[in-house]
């Protein structure tokens, strides 16, 4: 099984990387860009077949390691 974890900054946390990306895109002439945010995706290869179990495990991984809850929030997708 595969789990895709999306991790992004919480609203209200300043995102200097996102801002720099938007500015560079504007500088390059992409005027349609109003804003940008950068997040990360962690793709996990998992043993086992049990979706519910996987979901519970990956949630625990996020809480324990993958996300820093002071500044980040996460979302999990499980794929077969």
């Amino acid at each position, binding site marked *: 099984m595969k789990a895709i974890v999306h991790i992004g900054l919480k609203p209200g946390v300043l995102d200097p990387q996102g801002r720099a990306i938007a500015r*560079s895109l504007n500088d*390059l002439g992409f005027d349609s860009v109003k804003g940008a945010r950068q997040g990360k995706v962690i793709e996990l290869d998992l043993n086992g077949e049990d979706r519910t179990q996987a979901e519970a495990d990956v949630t625990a991984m996020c809480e324990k390691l993958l996300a820093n809850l002071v500044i980040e929030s996460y979302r999990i997708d499980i794929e077969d």
Partner: protein
Amino acid sequence: MTKTEKITPDVVAEHGLSESEYQIILDRLEREPNLNELGIFSVMWSEHCSYKSSRRHLAKFLTSGEKVIQGPGENAGVIDIGDGDCIIFKMESHNHPSYIEPYQGAATGVGGIMRDVFTMGARPIALMNALRFGEPDHPKTRSLIDGVVAGIGGYGNCVGVPTVGGETNFHKGYNGNILVNAMCVGHARTDKVFYSAASGVGNPIFYVGSKTGRDGIHGATMASAEFDDDSEEKRPTVQVGDPFTEKLLIEACMELMATDAIIAIQDMGAAGLTSSSVEMADKGGVGIELNLDNVPQREENMTPYEMMLSESQERMLMVLVPGKEHLAYEVFEKWELDVAEIGKTTDTGRLVLKHKRKIVCDIPIAPLADDAPNYDRPYIASEKRDVINAADIAQPDDFNLVLKQLISCPDIASKRWIWEQYDRHVMANTMDSSQSGGDAAVVRIHGTKKAVAISTDVTPRYCFADPVEGGRQCVMETWRNLTCVGADPIAITDCLNFGNPERPEIMGQLVGCIEGMNEACHALNYPVVSGNVSLYNETNGTAIPPTPAVGGVGLIPDSQYLTAISGAKDGDTLLLIGNMTGWLGASLYLREIEGREDGAPPPVNFDEEIRNGNYVRKLIRLRRINAVHDCSDGGLALAVAELCLSSNTGAVITKPHDDIPLHAHLFGEDQGRYVLAVEPNSVNPIISTAEGLKVPVRKIGTIGGDNFTMKDVFKISMNSLRHSHENWLPEYMKGDAK
């Protein structure tokens, strides 16, 4: 690719081998090579590994001396600094990879040069970088700077070795071929230096570090191939560095080296497993048999060809003492690195590779290394240029403006934007670094009062104008820069960056520079102990300016005697040591102000240089000098301006009474000169002793105030000079991203 693939002339050409080279392979093997064997010959005989165009000329270098423990031929050079301590150092290019992928190219360049140093048992203690970019207006320049600097910092900072200095030039000659030369300096105990010669028969060969992937396959041949507009397609050969693994690898190797388990050790650099195994076997006069099934692999279904040619980073090869294998497993497993026994030394003199129970390569080692092609390429010397008479160059109307233009021109402007991205303090032994803007970086040997001074230099303007004179000058300048911090210069490493050696005029530049450098080495008793050659730095037939970067290393026996550019105090007298003719040919002034790059470069007079330099060093050791800086780019005026900027003060210099035109007096680039700031009561003794030593000294002014002034000629506030100096690069880098 399978080994049954037919070796057609196209396949041979794709491997960068000429017809005659292929013929030699056929003769030596007395049969057709298979593809694995062809691949191995091709990387071993690439310019990068075999030095086939430069070998016979490099052989002329002075490479030995009282302090030399190991000269060229090993992973890095080793010099003795007394008390059982030695310094191990080398410089290397990563030009082509950095042009294609600036971040990873520069990062892996730093990683590679560090491995050359710690492979010999040295803990890396300092990094330097010599960079050449195209003109600032070129559309690629900005993003190349951004990526290269981030890559150097990203790697060095993470590994925890301070990047303490370097140089950065810009010229249109590098528009399509930037130069990224990295130097690493390490410290070892003399009785714990490790070499790469395998020995014995039946000894286990260990692979340690990262797994092998398909990175950089054919990197070594790429680094020796000229660029054209299709180079973008060669992209997948770029390697990715992992400084985290490098750091673990250093610690693990140091730990294993503290035992007596290692017979020989060699990093896997260009041409990875191939060159490391062949070199170890060749140096030790033994054969090697490897079982490729045991090579730690990152990807599935890797072929022998791919494994042998991969340039995956952060890997080392070792020959161990039989019976001590467990030590290697313990140490490398502790550091969570891969470790595997992949073969044995043999007495056959052959490189034998097994894969899936088949022999996939069986070739004699001697022709791969020793008998590699060694060309005597035709060359023509560069035409001598006329000496420019300074009086023929119009005097500027506004000296204030000239000063501002020079202090802010790309080559002179502060490189703070660059070096603030480098951790210069980690390891807590940095005593002087880029931060002071001084001549050489100084790093203390941990736990001792000794310190090493390091400087990288070359003035490509001079080398282009006259390769021999430029060659003398670049070696001389490192010697002078080391002298400026009170160090005894000991030895150099070099990185010879040139165009296509198959063109006689380029070959002439290479031969000329080597000749000039070698003269300097002999005159100064300053041998070459390691180095690297990077040829084919051309794009669409245009070569870079000849750029033999030199890295000099010297010893400060007692770090209390350190003197730097930054110590000038208000009220100090400014002295100039050295002769003055007002040499404007090939000067920075001529290029930046007059837009001319002609004229013969300033000549180097070794006898004068030695007298002047030795005197300066003696004064430093007698603590007679508060600050010192040599006169290089931009001449006397820029030397004083830089010294004032660094010392956070101003100066008044006096108008000369001689017949040298004023602008030549201020900006001429006569060699062998130093500006000193000394206490007024030291002036007379300094001058009278100098007379006896035939060292020219004159008073040129006084330190202090908020301005840089020459009465009736210029007066410029230090604030405004500082602003011009500091602002160019950050303002430039703020421009459009990528």
